[in-house]
């Protein structure tokens, strides 16, 4: 028995409609970005107090998503779990696409897009997280390409080497992304835990998205998928979620406990719309309900239950990314401890941020680009296996002996 890969037919109406939707998203995003470049970033609603907005949220979200995909490919590549070999190709392809999406999101957010391709690579600042991270991201994309190549040509040894490398590199990528915020000077950013909790949330969201992707794709294209494979992933997701909750608890308990950070913690936890995202979006919808669904015997052992939990996690982690980026910006830096600024020409107190339609269009555009590339890959590359099932013991030994 051998695992065969094949592309999808891609001539159904649904496929064409999907591609058309993605393409129109991409076009809309392109027009929005062009408009922003022409008129300046003020049209996106960002301002001097809240200089980062939705695009940065989406960038860290996408970069996080790519982690989980890589974990799933690593189950085969690093740990040699043959059952998960069918998902390896699609997982690596997705990991690459999500990193491209992250880079695109950052790119479209820059004030001077014309300089982004030259200056950062000519004048390099080793002290800046923004200088280190693009190198990590581009390296990650290249490693993913090599990984895909190894998988396509069935190079067993190269696969395991590159998979391990990609695994380690992904940790660096997510730590680096977390460090953009964690090493920052803002009260609500500054936290050595942030890079670590970023890795945990990345694992959770990525695994959840891969579960959705795998189940969706296999069901739509009517391929065989054994429930046990998904149930095991569900358990892995549950553990990731527990780690996320643990990190969230430690970080916020620390902020609420230390006297000088208490005001900031109160603002973070009970200070406005972002608190709603935190409590309802992240804690309840993103963590507690999925954890319950995954550990409860009746739902945790069914694909339906796991898929619902995964969808909630994917949403919850988006909220998590939002509460990483924005409260830290809207919370004012304290210039005069013990004093209050009553009058100023700038906004000095707590600032407000609201999404604008242009930012949403830009984010949709990035989504459209990678969606299109994903659909394209499904049709023209042999990414999907013909089936994914639990292997019998003699099959496993047979494959291993053949590969030797």
């Amino acid at each position, binding site marked *: 028995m051998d695992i065969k890969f094949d592309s999808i037919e891609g001539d159904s109406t649904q496929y064409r409609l999907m591609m058309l939707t993605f393409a129109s998203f991409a076009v809309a995003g392109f027009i929005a970005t062009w408009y922003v470049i022409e008129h300046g970033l003020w049209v996106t609603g960002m*301002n001097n107090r809240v200089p980062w907005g939705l695009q940065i949220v989406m960038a860290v979200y996408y970069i996080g998503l790519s982690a989980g995909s890589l974990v799933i490919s690593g189950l085969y590549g690093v740990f040699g779990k043959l059952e998960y070999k069918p998902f390896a190709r699609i997982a690596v392809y997705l990991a690459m696409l999500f990193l491209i999406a992250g880079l695109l999101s950052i790119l479209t957010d820059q*004030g001077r897009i014309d300089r*982004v391709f030259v200056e950062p690579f000519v004048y390099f600042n080793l002290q800046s997280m923004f200088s280190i991270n693009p190198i990590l991201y581009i390296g990650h994309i290249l490693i993913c390409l090599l990984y895909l190549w190894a998988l396509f040509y069935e190079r067993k040894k190269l696969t395991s080497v590159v998979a391990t490398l990609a695994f380690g590199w992904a940790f660096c990528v997510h730590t680096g992304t977390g460090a953009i915020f964690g090493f920052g000077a803002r009260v609500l950013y500054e936290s050595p835990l942030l890079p670590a909790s970023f890795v945990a949330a990345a694992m959770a969201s990525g695994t959840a998205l891969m579960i959705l992707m795998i189940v969706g794709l296999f069901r739509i294209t009517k391929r065989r998928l054994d429930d046990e494979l998904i149930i095991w992933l569900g358990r892995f997701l549950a553990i990731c979620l527990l780690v996320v909750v643990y990190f969230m608890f430690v970080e916020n308990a620390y902020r609420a406990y230390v006297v000088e950070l208490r005001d900031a913690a109160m603002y973070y936890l009970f200070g406005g719309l972002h608190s709603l995202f935190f409590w309802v979006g992240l804690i309840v919808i993103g963590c507690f309900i999925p954890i319950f669904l995954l550990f409860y015997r009746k739902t945790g052992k069914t694909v339906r239950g796991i898929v619902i939990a995964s969808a909630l996690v994917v949403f919850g982690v988006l909220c998590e990314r939002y509460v990483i980026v924005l409260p830290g910006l809207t919370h004012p830096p304290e210039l005069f401890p013990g004093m209050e600024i009553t009058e100023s020409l700038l906004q000095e107190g707590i600032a407000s941020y609201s999404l604008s339609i242009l930012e949403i269009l830009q984010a949709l555009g990035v989504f459209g680009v990678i969606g299109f590339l994903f659909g394209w890959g499904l049709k023209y590359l042999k990414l999907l296996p013909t089936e994914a099932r639990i292997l019998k013991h003699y099959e496993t030994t047979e494959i291993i002996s053949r590969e030797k």
Partner: protein
Amino acid sequence: MDRRDFIKTAGGLILTVGSGTYAFRILSATGVSASDPSNPLIGKKWGMVIDLNKCRSDCTDCLTACRTENNVSYHGDSRWDNHWIRKVKIEGEVGHTKIEKTVPLLCNHCDNPPCAQVCPVKATYKRDDGIVIVDHHRCIGCRYCMIACPYNARQFNFKNDDDWPNADHPKRSHGVAEACNLCAHRLDVGQMPACVEACQKCGANAILVGDLNDRKSEINRITSTLPVKRIREDLGTEPKVYYLGL
């Protein structure tokens, strides 16, 4: 040597040489050539003292002077206005007495500037004479410096301003970050910054700019003998803007 081998060797050679050159560039780009003997900035350390006892709470001459000198963009909307120097009113209680002060705030030209530390292209950097300045030709507009600045002193050109009050001096296109540069173009040719001149002209004479490395300078006398304070000294950024009576 067959073709395949040739391609392999050539490719390897190109990769090695290319990455080597690139690595050299990266490593050598980490420090601006501070040892250049013809560099006129070495040895100086510009600093500023603002005397809040002399500063008039209702006067905005320095703000206007700064805006017209440096073509700082202004639209009348506090979200996108840029103020290289701005005045804030602060209130607080010391003991049981309520105190109220008006403080001009500007870039503190820190000795350990967090904004320069995070700039991915070294567009923001500390000049050899201590002025923290933005190379607007290089800034990519990532706004990381605004996040890093603990003083809220940096602003971004969100919007183009059509006014051009000082035609001899450049303004900034939209998409780059900026902050007070202590009127480096004036200091370099021996003039005092625009805000200092405006403050002298209005009679308050509250702002003083001078060389902190020069032992005989007025600014050195004030900072070493009078009780000066800097904003958020606890952060370790070592600001070079001192306040009297804060």
